[in-house]
């Protein structure tokens, strides 16, 4: 019997193209490309007269820059237009499949990968975007890379890598009402901090994880990078296979059967070694919200904003002071009831159909507070189409939400969707950094349901009370 292995060990070993002294070449099966982090990589290839090694292993789409208003009106912003056109031109020149902005498959790169069956268990997947960790939900080793590495993958189909350590995050028990995958993820980041996973690949295990839907697992893995780990993993199971079967780029026929048989061997062996393990009890969790400018600044919706004098560590205390000044919050006061100006539902974290269903579920018969501007940005054209078939768009619109075209939108505010200075937003996105959603904007990260509840109440509120 060979040594028991984790899923990460297995994928790593099956993708080593070369093993040297201290550095390895990890073969990359799939490469997702978007407009912001790729132009300089293609330019580098041109300058050194290099080709793309496996153009059919890449898939490109514009998402970061794109307006979420009527597409027939064009991009609007000149620089964004050049960047998106450059992506299309580069894909044409190097023979890479590009999903056009007018295509209904267009959407956020991490939503369309799984939707198209481009994402499969056991693969290595990279993209010039840190939230590539999302694809780990399928049992694929997936992580973000910089532009130099985008160029490296284009030219060589490999990355120079060192093996990371194994970190098991075991989430036991069952989630209580209105506690979602987003809350599980925020609780992990709150528990280990934004650097807690640095140098590790996190594998999520436990009953609360396996009982999540595949989309919930995507939310969980998506936020792994906010805990400092480049990749998150969930072992593939029947739910994974069912999600992927029949997708346009999934294997077909006999190849599908062979693939499933192989995917079943990927799960971590019992007795496999983890360098670190933590356990969280899902049953103790409540809906969460961030109060500060780091995703680790997490509290329960019925909790209080921290008091400076309670923080012993000097650098932590001064960071909290800076955060609270930026967020304009009173130390020690309740987070519930803090008035908001904007609500954003969308992003690669929470822009999938189940997220929209969850948010819409509390809206019938209610209206968005007149003090609040609220928007829904579906993660892809296909999510939008599905939501419209189910009538979710009408529920949002009747409640007073704006119903937009797909893209990254106000998660990073590269397009026209951004907060004005001092505006406060309940957001389903992934980062509450200073200026992330617009200069001097203030972001509170929440689940889709909590965001919808905040839109109605006009303030951060406990969705559990609203449903009663």
């Amino acid at each position, binding site marked *: 019997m060979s040594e028991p292995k984790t899923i990460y060990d297995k994928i790593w070993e099956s993708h*080593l*193209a*070369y093993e040297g002294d*201290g*550095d390895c*070449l990890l*073969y990359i*099966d799939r490469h997702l490309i978007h407009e*912001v982090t790729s132009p*300089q990589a293609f*330019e580098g290839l041109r300058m*050194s007269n*290099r080709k793309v*090694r496996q153009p*059919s*292993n890449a898939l490109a789409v514009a998402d*970061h*820059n794109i307006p979420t208003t009527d597409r027939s009106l064009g991009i609007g912003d000149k*620089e964004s237009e*050049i*960047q998106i056109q450059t992506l299309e031109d580069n894909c044409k020149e190097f023979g890479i499949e590009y999903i056009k902005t007018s295509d209904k498959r267009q959407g956020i790169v991490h939503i369309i990968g799984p939707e198209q069956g*481009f994402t499969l268990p056991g*693969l290595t997947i990279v993209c010039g975007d*840190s939230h590539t960790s999302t694809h780990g939900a399928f049992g694929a080793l997936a992580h*973000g*890379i*910089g532009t*130099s*590495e985008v*160029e*490296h993958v284009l*030219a*060589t*189909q*490999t990355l*120079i890598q060192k093996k990371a350590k194994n970190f098991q995050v075991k989430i036991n028990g069952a989630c209580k009402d209105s506690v979602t995958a987003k809350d599980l993820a925020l609780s992990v980041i709150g528990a280990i901090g*934004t*650097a807690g996973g*640095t140098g590790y690949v996190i594998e999520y295990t436990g009953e609360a994880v396996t009982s999540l839907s595949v989309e919930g697992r995507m939310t969980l893995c998506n936020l792994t990078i906010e805990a*400092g780990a*480049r990749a998150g993993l969930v072992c593939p199971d029947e739910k994974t296979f069912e999600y992927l079967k029949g997708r346009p*780029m999934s294997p077909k026929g006999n*190849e*599908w059967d*062979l*693939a499933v048989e192989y995917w079943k061997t990927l799960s971590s062996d019992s007795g496999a070694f983890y360098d670190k393990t933590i356990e969280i009890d899902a049953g103790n969790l409540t809906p969460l919200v961030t109060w500060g400018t780091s995703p680790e600044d997490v509290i329960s919706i019925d909790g209080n904003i921290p008091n400076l004098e309670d923080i012993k560590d*000097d*650098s932590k*205390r*001064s*960071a909290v*002071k800076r955060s609270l000044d930026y967020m304009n919050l009173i130390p020690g006061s309740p987070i519930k009831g803090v008035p908001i100006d904007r609500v954003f539902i969308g992003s690669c974290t929470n822009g999938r159909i189940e997220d929209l269903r969850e948010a819409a579920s509390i809206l019938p018969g209610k209206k968005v507070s007149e003090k609040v501007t609220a928007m829904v940005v579906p993660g892809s054209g296909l999510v939008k189409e599905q939501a419209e078939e189910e009538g979710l768009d009408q529920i949002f619109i009747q409640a007073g939400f704006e119903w937009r075209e797909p893209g990254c939108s106000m998660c*990073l*505010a*590269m397009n026209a969707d951004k907060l004005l200075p001092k505006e406060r937003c309940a957001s389903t996105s992934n*980062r509450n*950094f*200073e*200026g*992330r959603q617009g200069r001097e904007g203030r972001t509170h990260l929440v689940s889709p349901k909590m965001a919808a509840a905040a839109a109605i109440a006009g303030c951060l509120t406990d969705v559990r009370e609203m449903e009663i």
Partner: protein
Amino acid sequence: MDKFSSVKGIAAPMINKSGNQLSLMMNIDTDMIIPKQFLKTIKRSGLGKNLFDEMRYDSNGNEIDTFILNKEPFRDAKILIAGKNFGCGSSREHAPWSILDFGIKVIIAPSFADIFFNNSFKNGILPIKMDEDIINSIIDESMQGEHLEINLVDQEIILKNRKINFDVDSVNKDCLIKGLDDIGSTLEKASYIDEFEIENANKRPWNILS
């Protein structure tokens, strides 16, 4: 990539104030380093003027006097000193591009986010991980504008009166010193990649798209 041997110059500490307490700023994220409005470029160059844009300029584009890189002699800093988890957040390589374009070639911090750490080496920037207490011990000298010399070959930070050793991974060190092009050296191993692709196609044919 330019060869890296040693760097001598001003070191700018990124400091947070809480009352009279000064401490190194932790969790400096890539949105702070280079805000998204500057990611629309299709070039690598010219981002130095927007490094730390929202901390450095007010909303009218005027310099904020209290920000360290707007003060003399730190406008000419070649070294940046910061708190834990420097470079967390997005994978944008615009972050190291803007740092390098400003003229900074070394960053000293107790810890770095993985993607940023990697991106730095790819651009000829040396990120040095050091114990927070040791870093704290060089803040005073840095604030007084003393020049620091970073010698990568000997792995030493040289101050007026003392030397401090630092660790660096041997592969990364070698690449920086030789100014190696990663892609070039990987392509020398192309036969291994060819072999792997044949094996991959045999064992896991569904992994291959055509």
